[in-house]
């Protein structure tokens, strides 16, 4: 065996293996968010889709994050042009209904879309149990480091971002996160 050649080959191969070993462990399409664990960016956005009783909010009403302190907030960014949003819509709507009476607030936030398109989409999808707000210049979306839809943020009762789901949010995962956050909220 030529140890000199083997040594030179190792110098080239080991860094490549190192780079790939790091890269293989991560989803190359996912941008790691620095937000979880940090205070959620504040927002005050107007309702364009009221939702359904008992979770409905009047159209034009302003949803302010500051007013929701003490509750777990599920902030779901979506758009009518987003195919993946169709996959999660019914599940999220159903989960929201299941948490009526608990310290949880679901808010949909329209991303790079028009309220008329959003309203039409909700009607086509059979309704949405919780209200949706409009984010006209995507300023709130950028504040949350959004890079596509759907993305769902879980804001704990203390106002910090606890979790983020990139892509369609599976109902069982949403329930699991909510239950753990509610349990934390209830503990002294």
């Amino acid at each position, binding site marked *: 065996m030529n140890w000199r050649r083997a040594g030179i080959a190792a110098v080239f191969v080991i860094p490549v293996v190192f780079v790939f070993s790091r890269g293989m462990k991560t989803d190359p399409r996912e941008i790691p968010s620095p937000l979880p664990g940090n205070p959620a960016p504040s927002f005050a956005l107007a309702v364009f889709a009221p939702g359904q009783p008992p979770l409905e909010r009047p159209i034009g009403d302003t949803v302010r994050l500051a007013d929701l302190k003490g509750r777990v907030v599920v902030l779901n960014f979506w758009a009518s042009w987003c195919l993946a949003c169709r996959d999660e819509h019914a599940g999220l709507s159903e989960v929201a209904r299941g948490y009526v009476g608990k310290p949880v607030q679901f808010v949909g936030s329209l991303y790079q879309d028009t309220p008329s398109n959003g309203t039409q989409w909700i009607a086509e999808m059979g309704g949405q149990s919780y209200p949706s707000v409009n984010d006209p210049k*995507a300023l709130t979306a950028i*504040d949350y480091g959004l890079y*596509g839809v759907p993305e769902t943020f879980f804001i704990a009762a203390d106002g910090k971002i606890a979790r983020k789901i990139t892509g369609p949010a599976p109902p069982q995962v949403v329930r699991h996160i909510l239950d753990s956050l509610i349990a934390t909220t209830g503990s002294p």
Partner: protein
Amino acid sequence: MTRVVLGTLVALSLAWTTPSARAQVRTDTTPRTTGDSALEARTSAVAAQLRCPVCQGLSIQDSPSELAQSMRSLVRDQLAQGKTPEQVKAYFVSKYGEWILLTPAPHGFNLLAYAIPVLIVLGGGFFILLAVRRWTTPASESPSA
């Protein structure tokens, strides 16, 4: 040896791919500028350093996507409010992480991006040196294998 070097270069080029968006990208070609050319120049300079989150290796200055245009407007607004370019970049880093910077900050794992080109050049130089020595060494002086 040559195969090892070529293989390394190919592997590194593959490893240097950029993330792509998972959702559809909406584009907007409507120009959104103000009459302030100095502000526009500063906006362009900062926007050219920020990565478009829904593109493949484009800055928000170069991307026609709606998100990039919105981010560019935000850069302009923040500069107009008196923030420095560093403060504007720090805002985007606080939202998207260092990934948003097209030129990574030289620390930690990022140092690889700076070190690898130098190592490749040094390795290439070393390889050429070895090859030249071998070619120029008379056959009688070369060690018998």
